[in-house]
């Protein structure tokens, strides 16, 4: 059989780390082919080699049976490859069509032929059912539409093979459905799609075949129709993972956190406040999930509650008023906090594990007397946490900047859970974490709840919100626009709410 795209023994090393280890990929013409794997499995590395961004150390890339050498992405484009990156590369101030034709402009007498360029892009968009206003400025477009512009760019250069690296990571469920429709249409048009993801249900829903990577190696190659979720997870992680969290109904107790009319003003005058008059309440023994598309004020809301950002309004924690008080005072009143960005907020790359695990308790008499640190106690504490949370680290003196994402998240979780605080704020607790580790983190959050602590969960991951929350609050443009019991919420329903479409839900 002639493969549309094939790699044989493709290998890429970064120092001692083998990011891709003799990868054989076989993609048939006209199929949607999933490349799956946990974070760090080597998916992006493989895609960069296919698109000419990285040179393989060994192995070959074959297009329709012909071996090709891709010295740059220009080579790849010339051979009919197109790629939509994880982070978009568009000019904000240019219009859609300008972005699409940039670098391949139609010319007339040596000048940019604006009218023909614009119509060509318009036609292309129509032909592929990509609903985009080609004259709009990219600056004004949502993430989902920007992604369509990236796809248009590739199609404009006549890509026969389209690589999409984790395209759904930034989308709402509705936007994702739209993307899937586009992908199916492209397949019908005879194009081949390489779809990179680490989300299982997307593979099952969309793709024809799947190649699973584990630690840089191909661990499985399957027809989607002939496999099931469990087999794929086993190939990804090397074991079975229970993704649905078993938990009993909540038994909410006393109020732990009350937020009243919280406002975070906009950084520029006249703009809408980032957090707009939010009130909420959280009880002991329940998990309240805040659902929302990233950038709708949830980060600012949490920063205001934790004291990292100035805000108006009142906050009561454990019966004490904490508004206006310092971070340390709030922590002392009974707050633990797993921040969304473990590398930028939750740890310091240059800190040793002992130091990173101590943060927040540096004044605790268990670790310091009269301002003098008890090095032995600190080290013992770090070792305990490393062991209890199975943190894979050379020693407690190792700098945490060397840890993988999942292990770093364990450091943060270990430290914050160890506070044993009545309020746990968990912000995107499993972002960028392996499937296997997700399970463990979810179990810990439920255990916190069952111990009578209140958990405020912020997540852009719908399955996480749905799987864990006893109550769900939906945040949209800085306001809470809906509250619903966790048991009654569906993905579809939540998705509409997250897009701010409350009327359609009501109907």
């Amino acid at each position, binding site marked *: 059989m002639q493969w549309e795209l094939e790699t044989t023994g493709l290998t890429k090393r970064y120092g001692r780390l083998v990011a891709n280890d003799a990868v054989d990929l076989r993609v048939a013409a006209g199929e949607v082919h999933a490349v799956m794997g946990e974070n760090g499995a080597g998916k992006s590395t493989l895609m960069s080699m296919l698109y000419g961004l990285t040179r393989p150390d060994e192995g070959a890339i074959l297009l329709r049976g012909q071996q090709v050498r891709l010295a740059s992405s220009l080579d790849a484009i010339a051979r009919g490859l197109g790629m939509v990156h994880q982070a978009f590369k568009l000019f904000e101030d240019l219009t859609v069509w300008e972005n699409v034709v940039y670098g391949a402009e139609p010319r007339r007498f040596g000048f940019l032929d604006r009218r023909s360029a614009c119509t060509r892009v318009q036609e292309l968009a129509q032909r592929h059912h990509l609903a985009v206003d080609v004259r709009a400025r990219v600056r004004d477009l949502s993430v989902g539409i920007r992604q369509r512009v990236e796809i248009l760019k590739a199609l404009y250069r006549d890509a026969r093979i389209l690589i999409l690296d984790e395209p759904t990571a930034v989308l709402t469920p509705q936007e994702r459905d739209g993307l899937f429709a586009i992908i199916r249409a492209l397949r019908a048009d005879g194009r081949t799609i390489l779809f990179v993801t680490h989300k299982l249900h997307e593979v099952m829903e969309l793709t024809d075949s799947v190649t699973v990577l584990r630690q840089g190696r191909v661990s499985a190659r399957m027809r989607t129709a002939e496999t099931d979720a469990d087999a794929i997870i086993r190939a990804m992680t090397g074991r079975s993972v229970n993704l649905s969290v078993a938990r009993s109904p909540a038994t909410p107790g006393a109020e732990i956190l009350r937020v009243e009319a919280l406002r975070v003003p906009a950084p520029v005058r006249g703009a809408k406040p980032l957090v707009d008059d939010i009130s909420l309440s959280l009880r002991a023994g329940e998990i309240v999930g805040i659902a929302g598309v990233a950038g709708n004020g949830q980060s600012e809301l949490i920063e205001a509650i934790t004291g990292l950002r100035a805000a108006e309004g009142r906050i009561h924690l454990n019966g004490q008023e904490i508004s206006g008080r310092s971070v340390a005072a709030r922590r002392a009143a009974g707050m633990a906090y797993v921040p969304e960005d473990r590398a930028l907020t939750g740890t310091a*790359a240059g800190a040793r594990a002992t*130091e990173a695990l101590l943060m927040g308790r540096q004044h605790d008499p268990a670790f310091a007397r009269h*301002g003098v640190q008890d090095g032995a106690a600190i080290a013992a504490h770090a070792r305990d946490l490393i062991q209890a949370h199975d943190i894979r680290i050379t020693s407690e003196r190792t700098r945490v900047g060397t840890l993988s994402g999942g292990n770093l998240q364990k450091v943060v979780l270990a430290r914050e859970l160890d506070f044993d605080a009545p309020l746990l704020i968990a912000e995107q607790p499993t972002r960028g974490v392996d499937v296997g580790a997700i399970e463990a983190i979810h179990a810990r959050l439920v255990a916190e709840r069952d111990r009578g602590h209140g958990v405020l969960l912020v997540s852009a991951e719908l399955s996480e919100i749905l799987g864990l929350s006893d109550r769900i609050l939906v945040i949209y443009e800085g306001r809470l626009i809906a509250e619903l019991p966790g048991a009654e919420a569906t993905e579809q329903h939540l998705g509409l709410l997250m897009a701010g479409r409350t009327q359609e839900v009501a109907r």
Partner: protein
Amino acid sequence: MHRLALLRPHPVLMAILTGLVFGALLLLLSGQNPLRAYAEMVRGALAPRNWNNTLVWAVPMIGMTLVAALPLRGGMVNLGGDGQLVIGGFVAAMAAIYLPLPGPLLAAVAILSAMLAAGLYAALAALGQTVLGIPMLISSLLLSYPAIGLTSWAAGFPLRDTATGLAQTLPVPEAARLPMLFGPVSTGVVLMALVAAVVVWADRRSVPGYELRMRGLNARFARYGGVPTARQTVTVMFLSGALAGLTGAIIVLGTHYRFINGALVSPGYTWSGLMAALLAGGEPLMAIAAGFFFAALQTGGFAMQREIQVPRVLSMVLQAIIILFVSLRNGRGAARKEDRS
């Protein structure tokens, strides 16, 4: 990767070597024998009979290195060392001359008031940042000029020692002078060694040291962990200024025996100290070592100029090149890391 790291020479050593090579080229271009010049420098700095000179230079050098290193450890920069240094020297002189106290007590009070005054002055720059939002880089530097100007005016006019004709104050009484240890080396060296030891210890073992280091590694992480960064800024600047005040007091009470206009600022201790601290990335022990190295470079430069008439600016050139290469490497490394994410 590990093996490679072992084979790769230490970056600071590389920078020093590069500096020496550049310096040698400069010397060759100007028709000098670089080996001879370097030999003179080493002898001038390290031959036993020159130890005293190196020590006299090293004490203020290390003092001002710590002044810079302390804030740097927390990712802050104190550019007002000169102002704090002259305030310290001036207040020490004033206290010693005008306070009616007996012997050793007088010296102690003079030193402590120098530290207090310079510390408060530095804290002012910190308040400029935490209260008014003026970046400390600017507020600390700007506050330097009025301090230098005012003390200079005071030493030149109302408080001038009219017997000498120079812009300097009266001499400090014998009783307030720091006792000499050997040659030109005063007990200031003991004082500075003690203070340096305390700084190194606090950096490694104390809670405030931990909080400052964490802030230097990631300020957002420190804030997240409840470190009161605004208060910390003021405290650290106070301590940094107090160290500058101590340095000024040691020079005035141990070497000059009066406040001489310009004499504290002109050797450039503040800037060399800042460079040494940068070289060490704010880590106190390394900073002290670097400060010592720069002091040796300076005294070596003097000797070289004296013995073979090679201008001593060469030491400054070497110092600058070394810093340049170290920071070049740091800058590039950081940029590369950003590329990867």
